[in-house]
C-alpha cells in the first residue's frame, strides 16, 4: 500500500528498465544468476549488497560495458541487445569519477555534447546549466587536477546530466568521500534526482546510503536478488536473516511455528514467549522452525516502575558507549544469545552498571518472522 502511494507521488507507474532473467557467468562462476527486475521511470533505485554480489556487474550491463550471458535488458522499452555503450540512452558516474585529466571542467562537461553538434551558444548554455545544477558555477576554467574529491564528483555528475539521459547510473559515487561530505552529498543527490526527474540507479554497499536516498532498493547476495522493496519495508520486513543482517543490527531468536495461516504466524519462543506476527509475503516455511527478529533500537529500557504491555527481563552483561547512543548487551534467561539493545543517552543508559537487572519493553509490531 505504502509503495503504491509513493510511486503515485513521483511518477506514473511506467517501466524504464526491464531486466529479464539475466545471467552473467565467467566460466563456472556466476556473477549474476537469473536476475529479474523492473525499475520505474523517475525512480531513485539502489542496488545494495556486499562486494562480489553482482550489483556492479548488473549496472555495467545496463550501461553496455558488459553483456549478459543469457537474458535481456530493455531501457525505455528498447531492447539493449547488441547496442554498444556509446549508443545507449544511459550515462554513468564512475566510482573513480573518470574525469579527463587533460581537459578543464568545462571541456569535461561538454565532452559528450561535441558529437551532438549543437551551435556554440546552445552548447555553452547547456554546460552552464549542468554546472549550476551541481553548484559548480564559475569553476568551468579550472583544471581537472585542481579539484577536490567532492568537486570531481560534481563534475562527473554534470558531465552525465548534461547529456539528458533517460537513466543515470551511479557506481558507488560517494565511497571515496569522507563521512561528512558523503552525508551532505546523499541529501544533494536525492534533491537533484527529484529536480531533474531522471531515473537514477545507484550501486552501493552502504546500507545507510541506500536507505537514505532510494525510492526502492534491491538487496543482492551472491549474484541473486534477495529482496526488492522500499527502504522502510526492507529495513523493517527483511525476507531473510541475510538481508536483515546486512541492513544493520538485528537480534535473532529461535522460534517454533505453532500456527500458520494466510496472513499471520504464531510462534513459540523461549525469551519472548508466544507471539503472533504478520506473515511476510515471501515466507516459505522450512520445517517446523523459524527465526524471530527484532532490531536493537526497537527494544527500550524500562526505568524504575515503568511498565510496558510487552516486556522481557534480563541482566546487562556489556555496555558500549557511542556518543549519542549506548549499546547494551542484555542476557535473557532462556535465550541462547544475549540481546543487543541500543538506547539513546538522554535517560542515562550510558550509566547503567554492568550486572544490573533490567526490563526491556517492545512493540510486538517490531517483531519480524523470517523463514529458517
Amino acid at each position: 500500500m505504502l509503495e503504491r502511494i509513493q510511486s503515485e507521488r513521483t511518477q506514473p507507474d511506467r517501466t524504464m528498465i526491464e531486466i529479464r532473467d539475466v545471467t552473467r557467468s565467467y566460466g563456472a562462476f556466476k556473477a549474476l544468476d537469473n536476475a529479474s527486475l523492473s525499475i520505474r521511470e523517475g525512480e531513485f533505485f539502489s542496488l545494495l549488497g556486499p562486494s562480489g554480489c553482482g550489483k556492479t556487474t548488473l549496472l555495467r550491463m545496463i550501461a553496455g560495458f558488459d553483456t549478459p550471458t543469457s537474458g535481456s535488458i530493455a531501457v525505455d522499452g528498447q531492447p539493449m541487445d547488441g547496442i554498444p555503450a556509446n549508443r545507449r540512452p544511459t550515462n554513468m558516474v564512475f566510482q573513480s569519477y573518470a574525469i579527463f585529466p587533460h581537459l578543464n571542467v568545462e571541456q569535461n562537461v561538454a565532452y559528450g555534447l561535441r558529437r551532438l553538434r549543437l551551435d556554440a551558444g546552445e552548447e555553452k548554455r547547456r554546460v552552464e546549466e549542468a554546472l549550476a545544477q551541481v553548484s559548480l558555477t564559475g569553476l568551468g576554467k579550472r583544471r581537472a587536477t585542481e579539484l577536490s574529491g567532492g568537486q570531481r564528483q560534481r563534475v562527473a555528475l554534470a558531465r552525465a546530466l548534461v547529456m539528458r539521459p533517460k537513466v543515470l547510473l551511479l557506481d558507488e559515487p560517494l565511497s571515496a568521500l569522507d563521512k561528512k561530505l558523503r552525508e551532505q552529498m546523499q541529501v544533494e543527490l536525492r534533491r537533484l534526482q527529484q529536480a531533474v526527474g531522471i531515473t537514477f540507479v545507484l550501486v552501493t554497499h552502504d546500507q545507510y546510503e541506500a536507505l537514505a536516498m532510494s525510492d526502492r532498493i534491491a538487496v543482492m547476495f551472491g549474484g541473486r536478488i534477495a529482496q526488492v522493496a522500499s527502504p522502510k519495508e526492507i529495513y523493517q520486513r527483511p525476507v531473510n536473516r541475510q538481508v536483515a543482517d546486512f541492513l544493520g543490527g538485528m537480534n535473532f531468536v529461535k522460534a517454533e511455528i505453532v500456527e500458520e495461516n494466510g496472513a499471520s504466524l504464531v510462534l513459540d519462543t523461549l525469551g519472548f514467549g508466544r507471539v503472533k506476527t504478520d506473515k511476510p509475503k515471501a515466507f516459505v516455511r522450512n520445517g517446523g522452525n523459524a527465526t524471530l527478529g527484532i532490531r536493537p533500537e526497537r527494544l527500550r529500557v524500562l526505568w524504575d516502575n515503568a511498565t510496558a504491555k510487552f516486556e522481557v527481563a534480563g541482566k546487562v552483561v556489556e555496555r558500549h558507549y557511542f556518543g549519542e547512543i549506548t549499546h547494551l548487551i542484555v542476557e535473557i534467561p532462556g535465550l541462547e544469545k544475549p540481546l543487543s539493545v541500543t538506547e539513546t543517552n538522554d535517560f542515562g543508559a550510558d550509566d547503567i552498571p554492568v550486572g544490573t537487572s533490567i526490563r526491556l519493553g517492545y512493540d510486538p509490531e517490531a517483531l519480524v518472522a523470517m523463514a529458517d
Partner: protein
Amino acid sequence: MTAIRRFLPGWLSSYAVLYLLFLYLPVIFLPIFSINTAATPKFPLSGVTLHWYEDLPRTPALIDATWNSLIVGVSAAILSTVLGILAARSITRYRYPGRRPINGLIMAPLVLPEVIVAISMLLVMLQLGLSLSLFTVVLGHVLVCIPYSMTVLTSGFEGFDRSLEEASADLGESAFGTFRRVTLPMVAPAIISSLLVCFTISLDEFIIAFFLTGTEATLPIYIWGQLRFAAKLPGVLALGTLLLFASFLLMTVAEILRRRAARRTQNEGGLYA
C-alpha cells in the same frame, strides 16, 4: 662491528666516486681532446682550439653520413614507436594467455649479442633477396629499438585508468573518437619520449648498421672509417663529442616526458584528492 659501521659510510662514498669515475672518465676525455691543437691525444694539451669543429661541416662524406643517420633514425623511431604502441597497449590493456612470454620475446633483443642479431638479420635479408641499403638498416634498428620503445610506452600506458575510455564511450564517443580525444592526448608525452629514445639509439648504433648497410655509411660507420687515419682522430673526437651531447640531451628530454606521461595516466581520482 661498530668500527666497521663507522668506516662503512666513508668506504661506500669513495666506492661510489670511483665507480662513477670509471664510468665517465673515458667519456670526459672525448671533449677534452677534441679541443686540443695537437692531433695526438696526449696530456698535457698543447693548446686550445675549435678548429676541429670548424672543419666538420666542410667534410662532404660527413654531411652524407649525417643525412643517412637522420633518415635511418627518424624512420626507425617512427616504425618502432608505432609497433611499440600496439604491443604496449595490448600488454597493458588485455589479459590473455601467453601475454608474459610474448612480452619476454619482444624484450629479448635487449640481451641478445648484437653481432649475432646482425649476422642473422644479414642472412635473412640476403635470403629474401633484399639488397643492402639504408632500408635494411632501418629494419635492423627497429628490431633493437622496440624493446626500448616498449619499456617507455608500457610505463606510460600502465595504470591508464580504463574507466576514462569507458567514460568516453558512455558519453557517446566511438572507439576511434575515444582513442583520438582521450587515449592519444594522455599518452602523447610517452609517445614523444619513445620517438626520442629510438632515434637516439639508432643514431648511436654501430654493429647492425655496419652489417646491414650497403655503400651508404651512417655516422658511427663514418667514424669507424676515419679511425684508420691518425690525422683524422681530432675530427672524430669533435664529432663524437657532438653526438654525445646530442644523445644526452635527447635522452634527458625523453625521460622527462616519460615521467610526465606516467604521472598523467594515473587517474587522480577522489581517492587521492
